[in-house]
């Protein structure tokens, strides 16, 4: 075993992910670079320390043939975050740096800088929370994020995290370059060949700063593969993302009848103007929260956000107390599995609807910054589950119809979805090969719930229903997924093949084995 520089070594007997879908795994070797209490006063600068640590860790994993996974905030519910023999905790790889103006291409400067866009380098362990704070302090903001801010940037993009920014894309669509460590003595600064934002100076600077020889690779397929890497293209030391001038978001929640014709039309056309005649501008964010058991006259909640100036200074919101305790959620989950009769089923359905109505009451908030709107999660850790189905927008209603059919059939057999559905829309961005937003516009139906013994049965029925309807779909890489080779091939088509080819080109066979995961096998991407 080498002496890993600037790194705390330990093991963990029982490690679980945030939602408890992966539980009590033993981690033989947990490595945390950059532990503050371990840094000698005479140590080299931070990026050099990180480089020395990563170089030694990756070289060791390849030499010993041990699987190496990098822990983000472990919010993913899928096996994409199953720890390997070595787990690297990137918590302190969290430096945020502005890319020098002199290193931007002329084209980027004219087309983007002139409009206020700014390339920012962030190490892979930097959280969305930290980015919101640090960027906000200098008048900048992320272009989009997920619903909350706990993810680390490398993990967020690796799994295709998105919001519902209907005119932008997913988080990975704001990425301009990825710094990948693929061997102990080799890193790649991967940028698109088409319209790169930066010159090779950035890769050269990273080589000098980290001490890891870095080649600038300008390749459209390699870049599009690295945008959503599933954690399997090497260690993401850092990314360059595009920030934009700080904005505020005014949020409005409007309860609707699930069967409202106007709502249906808005989902079909993505023209929301008829839903808010007093505010005749297209929103930045459009989302519909749906009850799985819509009651007469209700069951739908439209969430809209518009970009506006916001006056108060950016703040860094503290954590929130989860809605309900894990004990109570476990109790409800257990109860849901016990109650099978029609009366009990109706009770559960009414409970779901009551909780939804309480959570999504009508409101029209004053503008707040993205870091506040998409702040700390209130989801209780330990007992959640969710799948998210992504389809081309044109299939949205057929998909919803199939899902509601499956949900009704499951309810008739006494199994209930103890949660809600979130319908979000994400346009195609730069074209990440494994981005879920493959179509011009993609509809995402997230089915979050309390975990019960019935939950996976319900999810499987929904996936099968879509197969029967021959609707090409994929599941969110970070959520419970029915990722089979056939489904992946049907949805991603040639892009899945390109991703596999890019992985083969970026990694040696030995490195390929080190960065493999069970998900690659089940999705046919290994």
């Amino acid at each position, binding site marked *: 075993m080498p002496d890993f520089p600037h790194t705390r070594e330990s093991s963990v007997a029982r490690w679980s992910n945030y939602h408890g879908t992966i539980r009590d795994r033993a981690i033989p070797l947990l490595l945390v670079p950059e532990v503050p209490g371990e840094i000698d006063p005479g140590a080299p600068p931070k990026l050099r320390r990180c480089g020395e640590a990563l170089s030694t860790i990756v070289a060791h994993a390849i030499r010993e043939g041990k699987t190496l996974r990098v822990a983000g905030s472990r919010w993913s519910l899928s096996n994409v975050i199953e720890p390997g023999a070595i787990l690297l905790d990137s918590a302190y790889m969290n430096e*945020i740096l502005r890319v020098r103006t002199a290193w931007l291409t002329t084209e980027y400067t004219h087309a983007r800088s002139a409009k206020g866009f700014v390339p920012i380098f962030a190490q892979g362990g930097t959280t969305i929370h930290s980015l919101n704070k640090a960027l906000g302090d200098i008048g900048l903001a992320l272009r989009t994020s997920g619903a909350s801010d706990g993810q680390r940037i490398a993990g967020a993009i690796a799994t295709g995290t998105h919001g519902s920014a209907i005119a932008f894309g997913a988080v990975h669509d704001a990425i301009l370059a990825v710094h990948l460590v693929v061997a102990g003595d080799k890193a790649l600064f991967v940028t698109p060949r088409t319209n790169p934002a930066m010159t090779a100076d950035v890769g050269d600077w990273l080589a000098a700063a980290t001490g890891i020889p870095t080649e600038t690779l300008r390749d459209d397929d390699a870049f599009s593969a690295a945008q959503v890497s599933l954690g399997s293209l090497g260690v993401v030391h850092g990314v360059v993302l595009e920030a934009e001038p700080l904005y505020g978001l005014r949020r409005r929640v409007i309860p609707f009848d699930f069967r409202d014709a106007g709502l249906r039309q808005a989902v079909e056309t993505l023209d929301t103007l008829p839903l808010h005649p007093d505010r005749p501008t297209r929103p930045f964010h459009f989302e519909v929260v749906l009850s799985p058991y819509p009651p007469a006259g209700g069951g739908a909640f439209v969430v809209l956000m518009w970009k506006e100036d916001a006056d108060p200074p950016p703040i860094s919101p503290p954590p929130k107390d989860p809605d309900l305790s894990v004990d109570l959620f476990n109790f409800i989950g257990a109860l849901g599995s016990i109650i099978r009769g029609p009366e009990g089923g109706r009770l559960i359905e009414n409970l779901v609807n009551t909780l939804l109505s309480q959570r999504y009451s009508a409101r029209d908030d004053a503008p707040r910054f993205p870091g506040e709107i998409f702040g700390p999660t209130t989801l209780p*850790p*330990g007992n959640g589950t969710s799948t998210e189905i992504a389809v081309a927008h044109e299939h949205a209603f057929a998909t919803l119809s199939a899902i509601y059919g499956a949900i009704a059939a499951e309810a008739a057999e006494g199994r209930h979805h103890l949660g809600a559905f979130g319908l979000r829309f994400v346009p195609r961005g730069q074209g990440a090969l494994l981005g879920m937003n493959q179509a011009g516009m993609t509809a995402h139906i997230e089915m979050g719930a309390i975990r019960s013994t019935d939950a996976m049965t319900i999810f499987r029925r929904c996936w099968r229903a879509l197969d029967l309807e021959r609707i090409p779909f994929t599941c969110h890489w970070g959520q419970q997924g029915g990722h089979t080779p056939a489904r992946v091939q049907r949805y991603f088509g040639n892009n899945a093949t390109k991703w596999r080819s890019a992985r083969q080109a970026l990694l040696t066979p030995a490195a390929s084995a080190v960065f493999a995961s069970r998900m690659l096998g089940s999705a046919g991407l290994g």
Partner: protein
Amino acid sequence: MSGKKTEGADGRVLAALIAAATATSVFGAVHVRLANEGTSGPLYECDAAACAPAQTDDPSRKNLGRMDFYVLPDGCVALGGAVLRPDGPGVDVECGPPGGTTIYRCEAGACQPLDPAAGDDGAGTWPIRLPADCGGRIHELIVLGVRTDAPKVYVECDASSGPVGEM
């Protein structure tokens, strides 16, 4: 129609029961969680003698029943020390470097500055050891079994980024 109303009422009753069951103060807290505006970092398990990387890392520890939750005052990320007060129950935290700035008493649902002149002999209190690895920056403290003889303490270091620098 009337049947529907009854069912809806049942759902509301159940929802109200759930809300009531989460009001931990009704039953008295047996666990305490304190967190600040920082970012989750590595997890340690501490006893009176030492801290070590946690052998059990299960995020559901953040959200147990009968757990009191406190948000530390703005900027209280550098933590000089912490003392468990099982009787309250609550925790006194020293915000700032050791021997430094302000002590807050987190008890009965809120953290309030503690007047040093108020006098406190520390009887019945239990010092919480903080991991040296955190470098004095803590994101979260969780004490399980605050009224027991051997409370279990989990400490998450803070891993917040600094301000934006230049390449």
